[in-house]
């Protein structure tokens, strides 16, 4: 017998929880849902566009009635639960229907607050909460001319905007002196007001309603100062209150919401609650992002998996008024302990303010151009130290380091045909269509359905902006603590710590100890786990090749047609006639289709069949050529110029240095590919300042630069320090690589890693702490003792034969 789960509330929080539950444990419960509204589940935050005529009710339906049928869920529409009998474990509705439960989920949401002034119950006085309210407003707009919206907050302004779109003359009455005072500071509020006035919205600021006057229907409004305004419709949008009367009546502990624990349980352990009706750690939320996080945690516990805790959400806000971009998060007012960074360009209609304390962002307000909102929000939630890029912070992420994609940042004004994802050729129209048609809510959903942002990731900000704009504004961009992959709740850092502290020495041990949801991981986590294990225990020989991506498994790069490329190492970019002859011989003998000079100063052979690889490697080995690891998350190349041996400007022997660096570091596995360069003088012909680690020789010694990237987003290196001798260069290199190897997340290049942890941190560990530098360098060299075996030679001699030969050739 399945257990019975009853859900009170057919809104976004309750149904999202059910959806999450069906995903992880579809067979656990027989589910019954009670909803007081006569509809399926719809996206309540999209009521504003419905009112404005931008969308229809059908557009915003999330789960139609067929969905309930398909998932075997009993839905009672238009039935309000009036009693919970906790002793008898059943819920009872107004018409006497009762339903037994093993587990109960309360998701009763919130109700609009109605100011109890005289006349609040007249016809023509409505709130703005559900489809019924929207229908009433749309009816009024057809028959009447004048509307008053009480409340100049998010909801009130959206309602006013919608009514203007419906042809009404609208006045917003607000008790405060500035609009949206809970989200905006005075300058941003003033810009917003001006822009709304240009659209025909009227405002009465600092006005307190005393009475609503009329015979049967509202006729006018009177304020405390005695003035009056004529109107045919009054929309009350002054806030919401958690709806917990039912729970309270049943004796469940409530304060200003139903009090829940981090597992979303009420004081009665059989009864869970999620959404706007709850109070978690003293906070009641009125936005959708927290509710989705709650739903996930609650579903996990209902499924009896028992992992995951809800620890609260830092929320951000956007206004859903077409053509107005506005973003607000955190503490945007500040106090005597905070500083403000402000950027204002009134002519362009752009305003940004960041509130900073101890070099960490505490809050942000943006008006006009909000593309960087999600970036500031991430910096705020992660409490990132902004010291190193503070001077460029206000100009946005695109101005960090250097140029990148020079895209138009305003997704709203982009054409439908504008390409958002350059890797996968996905246009704005495709993404918007997928979000709308498939009811997508998260970045991961969009990635799965459209592939946008799933390759290099440089368009992630744009995709998030599109998502926010299409489904409604207040979606959290991504969870604060990002799990390593869908198999686990644990983060990269938690997994690494467990491997180290608990001495885990196999992928199986990690998966079992940390309780993965999948039997043996996935293509995302297994390579990461394998890297973390190899990095932590270099001497143990625990490399699991079945968990490596094909390129690393066979030590060659797979190409689009399933053939492979071969790139031998050329130390410091140098080669010899003998090596070139061997490459030429192999190219002719194996009929290589393309011989190409790479950007890393080596020669690549393309179009080789896998079976041929060991023989080719054998021949290359004979000339002294070894694997270039061009296929790996590993040390790639050390690019050099010829330096003072030949160049009249050269200050040091950069070629020799490059070779020494490559001899020391080849064969090491890293979180992502790792490139180096050594230039003989500040003319920097080896382009050392866009490498992960770059050396620029100067007359007095060597300048060391870190965290550069010439790829997806060009980023010039940060200057680490200057040293005097080659020995020091080698020591700093080893220490830097080891710090990166031990602390970066798998698939995180040095550039984003340094932006995450801060250059100051890297300097502390490597430049300022000599003892630590030496320890790191020693650990690197210790690991290298076990890594510097040419994988090509091993395979030429028969290792992993099964990888290169077919299982069988059959005639049939």
């Amino acid at each position, binding site marked *: 017998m399945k257990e019975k789960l009853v859900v009170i509330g057919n809104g976004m929080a309750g149904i999202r929880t059910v959806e999450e539950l069906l995903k992880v444990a579809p067979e656990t419960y027989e589910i019954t849902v009670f909803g007081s509204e006569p509809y399926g589940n719809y996206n309540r935050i999209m009521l504003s566009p419905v009112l404005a005529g931008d969308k229809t009710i059908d557009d915003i339906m999330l789960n139609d009635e067929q969905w309930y049928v398909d998932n075997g869920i009993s839905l009672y529409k238009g039935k309000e639960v009036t009693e919970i009998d906790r002793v008898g474990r059943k819920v009872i509705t107004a018409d006497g229907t009762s339903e037994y439960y093993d587990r109960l989920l309360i998701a009763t949401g919130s109700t609009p607050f109605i100011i109890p002034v005289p006349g609040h119950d007249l016809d023509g006085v409505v709130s703005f909460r559900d489809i019924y309210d929207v229908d009433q407003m749309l009816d009024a707009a057809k028959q009447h001319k004048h509307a008053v919206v009480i409340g100049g907050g998010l909801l009130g302004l959206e309602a006013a905007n919608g009514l203007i779109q419906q042809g009404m003359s609208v006045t917003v009455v607000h008790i405060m002196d500035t609009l949206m005072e809970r989200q905006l500071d005075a300058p941003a509020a003033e810009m917003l007001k001006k822009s709304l006035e240009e659209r025909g919205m009227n405002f009465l600021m600092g006005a307190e309603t005393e009475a609503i006057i009329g015979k049967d229907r509202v006729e006018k409004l009177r304020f405390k100062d005695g003035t009056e305004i004529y109107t045919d419709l009054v929309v009350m949008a002054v806030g919401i209150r958690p709806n917990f009367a039912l729970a309270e009546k049943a004796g469940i502990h409530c304060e200003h919401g139903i009090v829940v624990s981090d597992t979303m349980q009420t004081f009665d352990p059989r009864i869970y609650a999620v959404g706007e009706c709850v109070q978690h750690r003293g906070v009641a939320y009125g936005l959708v992002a927290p509710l989705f996080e709650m739903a996930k945690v609650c579903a996990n516990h209902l499924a009896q998996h028992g992992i995951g805790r809800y620890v609260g959400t830092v929320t951000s806000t956007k206004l859903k008024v077409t053509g107005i971009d506005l973003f607000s998060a955190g503490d945007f007012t500040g106090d005597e302990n905070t500083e403000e960074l402000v950027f204002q360009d009134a002519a362009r209609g752009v305003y940004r303010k960041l509130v900073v304390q101890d070099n960490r962002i505490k809050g942000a307000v943006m008006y006009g151009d909000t593309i960087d909102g999600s970036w500031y929000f991430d910096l705020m939630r992660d409490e990132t130290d902004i010291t190193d890029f503070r001077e460029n912070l206000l100009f946005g992420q695109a101005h960090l380091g250097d140029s990148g994609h020079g895209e138009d940042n305003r997704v709203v004004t982009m054409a439908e045909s504008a390409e958002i994802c350059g890797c996968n050729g996905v246009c704005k129209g495709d993404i918007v269509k997928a979000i709308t048609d498939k009811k997508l809510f998260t970045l991961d959903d969009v990635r799965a359905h459209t592939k946008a942002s799933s390759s290099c990731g440089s368009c992630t900000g744009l995709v998030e902006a599109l998502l926010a704009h299409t489904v409604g504004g207040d979606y959290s961009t991504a969870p604060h603590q990002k799990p390593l992959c869908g198999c686990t709740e644990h983060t990269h850092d938690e997994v690494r710590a467990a491997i180290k502290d608990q001495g885990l020495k196999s992928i199986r041990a990690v998966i079992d100890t940390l309780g993965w949801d999948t*039997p*043996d991981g996935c293509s995302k986590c297994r390579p990461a786990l394998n890297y973390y294990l190899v990095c932590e225990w270099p001497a143990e020989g625990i490399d699991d090749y079945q968990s490596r991506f094909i390129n690393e498994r066979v030590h060659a790069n797979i190409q689009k047609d399933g053939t492979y490329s071969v790139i031998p190492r050329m130390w410091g970019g140098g080669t010899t006639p003998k090596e070139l002859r061997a490459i030429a011989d192999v190219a002719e003998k194996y009929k290589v289709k393309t011989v190409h000079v790479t950007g890393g100063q080596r020669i690549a052979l393309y179009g080789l069949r896998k079976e041929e690889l060991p023989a080719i490697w054998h021949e290359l080995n004979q000339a002294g050529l070894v694997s270039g690891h061009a296929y790996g998350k590993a040390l790639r190349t050390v690019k050099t110029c010829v330096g003072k041996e030949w160049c009249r400007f050269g200050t040091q022997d950069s070629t020799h240095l490059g070779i020494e660096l490559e001899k020391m570091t080849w064969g090491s596995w890293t979180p992502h590919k790792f490139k180096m360069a050594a230039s003989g003088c500040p003319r920097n012909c080896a382009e050392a300042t866009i490498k992960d680690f770059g050396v620029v020789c100067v007359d007095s010694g060597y300048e060391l630069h870190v965290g550069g990237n010439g790829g997806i987003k060009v980023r010039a290196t940060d200057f680490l320090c200057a040293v005097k001798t080659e020995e020091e260069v080698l020591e700093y290199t080893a220490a830097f690589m080891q710090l990166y190897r031990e602390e970066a997340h798998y698939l995180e290049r040095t550039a984003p890693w340094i932006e995450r942890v801060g250059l100051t941190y890297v300097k502390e560990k490597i430049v300022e702490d000599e003892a630590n530098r030496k320890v790191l360098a020693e650990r690197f060299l210790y690991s290298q003792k076990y890594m510097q075996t040419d994988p090509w030679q091993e395979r030429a001699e028969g290792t992993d034969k099964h990888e290169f030969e*077919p299982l069988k050739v059959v005639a049939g």
Partner: protein
Amino acid sequence: MVAAMSENWIEVGKMNDIPQLGSRVVRTSQGDIAIFRTAKDEVFALRDKCPHKGGPLSQGIVHGKRVACPLHDWKIHLDSGEAVAPDEGCAASYPVKLDGDRILLSLMPKEGCPNQ
């Protein structure tokens, strides 16, 4: 089923010829067929061609009863050959069975999926 009538089992190798969570190909005149071995020693056979861009599935990472295509990381169900939603498409699936540790393959693809 119809396919069962014309099944002609060919021994293609032993269980231990394929690593756990690994795959190897059988070369045939109708193209490569990838034989997969899961962590639980189940064996599956699919046409070695991802429905997306033709990537060799035999080179992918095997996890659970799925394989991730090496080219663009599409996930394919090993038992049915169907792409894991929301991706759509399938790779033809072939009957395969064990006789002791001998792996027996039929070259007659199961019905329900175009062989291309």
